[in-house]
């Protein structure tokens, strides 16, 4: 049975696990998320056949007082379902030192780092991220960055500078430099270690997934949803609705993620 028919019928796939490489957890000041606890999230992931979510907790990203402890606790609760990005807040260099130590002691928890430069208002090229970049480069880790078109903090130009410098890091362009799609595609073409992310992309424009696949290749696209912001069924629906091959869909849903995670 084709993936589309199977999902319409059953709401999940029998032979196509979903790996979500862009998630969060917990409540957030700017919006209401009714189902944001690890327990609620796991229940929804199981419903839609999401095998693994890699996330960074909202509290980590916005509260230096809490930091990465909440990521560690959450993964420990559901080690088969979650992995975490170690969140980096560049305003607190002394915390970054501890974050890197925590990473070393929790290699089964973390797969890389999360930078939220637009919100933290420090460009990803700033020296304060350097310890995390170098750590990731040395260990071939993932770095999931919020990237946004026109941003002076994490726009395409800043991503290019980082990609040129840190060739061993798997750079996941969260939101694919939102709006500057052509520049994001070019980055994914120019650098073997730079990937496009679907989070907050297909809800914006019908046909964008086809464009990504045609110009960048489905091997360079990861499935991300900002869950618990966005609904799995909706995002799976956009990939099923795109006029791309079954193999492309499988690359996006799980094969690329499995390959990236295996190398860590």
């Amino acid at each position, binding site marked *: 049975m084709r993936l*589309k028919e199977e*999902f*319409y019928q059953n*709401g999940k796939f029998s032979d196509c696990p979903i790996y979500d490489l862009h998630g969060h957890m917990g409540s957030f000041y*700017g*919006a*209401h*998320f*009714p*189902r944001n606890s690890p327990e609620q999230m796991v229940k*929804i992931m199981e*419903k*839609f056949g999401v095998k693994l979510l890699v996330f960074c907790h909202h509290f980590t990203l916005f509260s230096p007082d809490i930091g990465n402890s909440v990521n560690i606790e959450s993964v420990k609760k559901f080690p088969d379902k979650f992995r975490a990005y170690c969140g980096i807040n560049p305003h607190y260099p002394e915390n970054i030192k501890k974050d890197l130590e925590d990473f070393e002691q929790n290699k089964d928890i973390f797969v890389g780092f999360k930078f939220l430069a637009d919100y933290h208002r420090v460009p990803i090229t700033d020296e304060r991220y350097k310890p995390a970049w170098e750590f990731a480069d040395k260990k071939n880790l993932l770095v999931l960055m919020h990237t946004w078109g026109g941003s002076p903090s994490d726009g395409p130009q800043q991503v290019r500078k980082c990609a040129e410098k840190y060739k061993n890091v798997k750079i996941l362009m969260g939101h694919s430099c939102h709006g500057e799609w052509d520049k994001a595609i070019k980055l994914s073409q120019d650098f073997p270690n730079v990937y496009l992310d679907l989070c*907050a992309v*297909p*809800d*914006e*424009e*019908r*046909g964008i997934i086809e464009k990504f696949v045609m110009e960048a290749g489905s091997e360079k696209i990861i499935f991300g949803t900002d*869950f*618990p*912001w*966005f*609904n*799995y*069924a*909706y*995002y*799976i*629906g*956009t990939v*099923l*609705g*795109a006029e791309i091959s079954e193999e492309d869909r499988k690359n996006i849903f799980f094969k690329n993620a499995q390959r990236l995670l295996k190398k860590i």
Partner: protein
Amino acid sequence: MKLKFFDANVYIGQPTIPKGKPIKNANELIKEMDKYIIEKSLVWHIAQRDVSPEEGNELLNKEISDKKRLFGCWTILPPQTEEVIRQNFFEQMKKNRIYALRIFPKSHNFILDKIVFKDFFIQLIEKNIPVIIDTQQISYESIYTLLKDFPDLECILCDIGIWSVNRYIWPLLEKFQGIFIETSLLALEDGGIEETVKRFGSDRIIFGTGLPERYPEASIVSLLHADISDEDKEKIAYKNMEKIILQVKL
């Protein structure tokens, strides 16, 4: 389960600046509807927003005149300028099978307020004609003011944005029975459909695809697999919109 759909949020025509995959005309829309098994659509023409409401309304009339599966939605402007709202307005609506009205205050530069629309909106309430509000075109403060002034006006809020807007919308659903939410972006929110149904019932949600700008499958599978009853799904997919159309008195 199999659902039949009534799409409340779709436009035809070629935009000045293309977005998504434009659906040029009503014939193309019918083909798209068949592809997704959408039985009926409430449709508007993009020229109503981006070119001229008057001309766009006319283009729509021509496109849907022989398409019984399509129900029309005109765009209005302040009655005072008599560009769109003139004598025999409602007769013309009936003649052209127009069942709802859209407003674009931001693009068309007017204030959505009782100073402008009081007498006209009183007539809409009497005739059960719904107003469709694209929330990218008007602030929530203005929507709140509108509903305080016209608590019985039927409004379908569509394109509600990609951030969860529960904090804005739930108070409106609680207070005003004539408020409906369209699904093409409500379904994007995790739990958007389920949590709204849990609190306010399924009567207040209207199915929409957001065609041609969004992938229809997104809204369709989100409803198909939402954790709500089959009866609730049927209402959202088709029955609620059908009921609104049937209650319009022209």
